[in-house]
């Protein structure tokens, strides 16, 4: 599958980590390893200091909302050995996601963690300056979460209806756009009951 040309296999990283930091690795995959969110700083510090992995640079830090939990994804780069390591921290608490900041290990996490906090609402313990980055303080939502509806989803006027995929998508015909009546968002809740999914409601 689509691993990078110099990506280290997850098993190799996981085996080494198992010996050094028992219990931190909770899942392994060909391309990445999954670690407990509260151990992520230890894991990254160990990979950073280790001579055989030499993860000198945090090249990318981002997050994925998986509905039940969050994944915080770290792409680590060794410049001397020219390989890439992918570490995913699994944040089980979807209500109040919190994990240790890796800023003490990588200064490059400063703005990337702020971005994740701003758009995904994941807090980083130990970050020196955790504020909103693009949006303003007090903005009521975290837009990249899957429960945050975008304009196309609220109005039902998506850009490309034939290919649209929605959180409330009809499982039988995955390509069919559901009409706006089915989307439950506060004031639309009453009309959704009336429309009952019939075509045309809300347009």
């Amino acid at each position: 599958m689509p691993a990078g040309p110099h990506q280290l296999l997850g098993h190799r990283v996981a085996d080494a980590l198992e010996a050094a930091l028992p219990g931190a690795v909770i899942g392994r995959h060909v391309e990445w390893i999954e670690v407990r969110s509260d151990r992520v700083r230890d894991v990254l510090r160990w990979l950073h200091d280790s001579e055989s992995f030499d993860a000198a640079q945090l090249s990318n830090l981002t997050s994925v909302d998986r509905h039940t939990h969050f994944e915080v994804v770290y792409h680590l780069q060794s410049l001397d050995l020219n390989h890439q390591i992918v570490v995913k921290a699994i944040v089980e608490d979807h209500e109040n996601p919190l994990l240790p900041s890796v800023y003490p290990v990588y200064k490059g996490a400063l703005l990337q963690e702020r971005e994740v906090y701003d758009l995904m609402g994941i807090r980083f313990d130990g970050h020196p300056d955790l504020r909103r980055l693009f949006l303003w303080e007090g903005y009521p939502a975290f837009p990249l979460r899957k429960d945050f509806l975008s304009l196309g989803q609220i109005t039902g006027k998506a850009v490309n209806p034939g290919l649209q995929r929605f959180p409330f998508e009809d499982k039988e015909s995955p390509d069919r756009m559901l009409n706006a009546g089915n989307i439950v968002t506060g004031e639309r809740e009453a009309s959704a009951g009336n429309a009952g999914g019939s075509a045309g409601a809300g347009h």
Partner: protein
Amino acid sequence: MNSTAEPYVLNIGPQHPSTHGVFRVRVVMDGEVIRDLDMIVGYLHRSMEKLAEERTYTQNIPFTDRADYLAAMSGNLGLALGIERLAGIDVPERASYLRVIFAELQRVASHAMANGTLVSDAGAWQTPLLYMFREREKILDLFEMTCGARLTTNYMRAGGVSFEPPAEFWPALNELVAELPGRIDEYMELLADNEIFLARTRGIGIITPEDAINGSLVGPALRGSGVPWDLRKAEPYCVYDRFDFDVPVGTRGDVYDRFMCRMMETRESVRILKQAIAQIPPGPHKNDVPLALRPPVGEVYSRVEGPRGENGFYLVSDGGPAPYRFHLRAPSLINLSLLRELARGASLPDAVVTLGSIDIVVGEIDR
């Protein structure tokens, strides 16, 4: 009476000529010296990553034009490579060469803009900038005759490129490639030993190699500090492994070294262009790819060496027609990780040239 002044807060931007876009910083000044700096971004935030989740993979390619609008070709290329890796799509050889040609032209154009505005910040008001715009205009003309757009090119596709360049493209390209080395010599003569420029840039905004690596710096900001890291060498994509070129690095990590790195890279780009023009094979410029692309479940982190460094695309597919998650790793934003440290203790004009030497594009910072 105490003669030292109270620290005061100075607001710069969001629309100051030296801020390279809608970028705002608040600095706490103690007399002439910066005590603290806070950057305020988001004036161009369009929530691209959220919008991308309800568009198909191909429909997302135009977004990359509008992220880094000075290097649209590099953004296009990064995303196209990511989609291809995710969906297992092959690219014809000619398309790979065309991609290299356009990506390198884009690098020359972007570096001309970066260095031109940096020199403008350093006090050489407009003259070098407009000299460098002369070459940039010619490159944008080449883009226009190929794909109809100058900035928002939307040229690369999964499986190739959208158009074969027209017949008049090749003579114009050859003319430009022949002309560029002389132009670069001209800039070097104008700036490299210029006393005022040296005074404004030598020893200013020094980044150590350790800080550059640890702070996730990429591109000329990293190479200026002497770290020879270039994805075209380290992880060759397209057909970069077939070309002979060097990776210029700085020695001191100051503003001048980052400027010179870009100048030298322009020369290397010309070398690559010459080889690519000589080697480009005939053939189709695009493979047929289904319009309704549904990559298998999986994820990919694809990256290319853009003018500002590692242009990364993290795509997560759930098997649907649109990406489940689309993340753009923006070198402009992440290269600013060290800005606060660099600015502390510096004077305001020095901080302005330091920011200029890091070379940010606000469209990419805010996305």
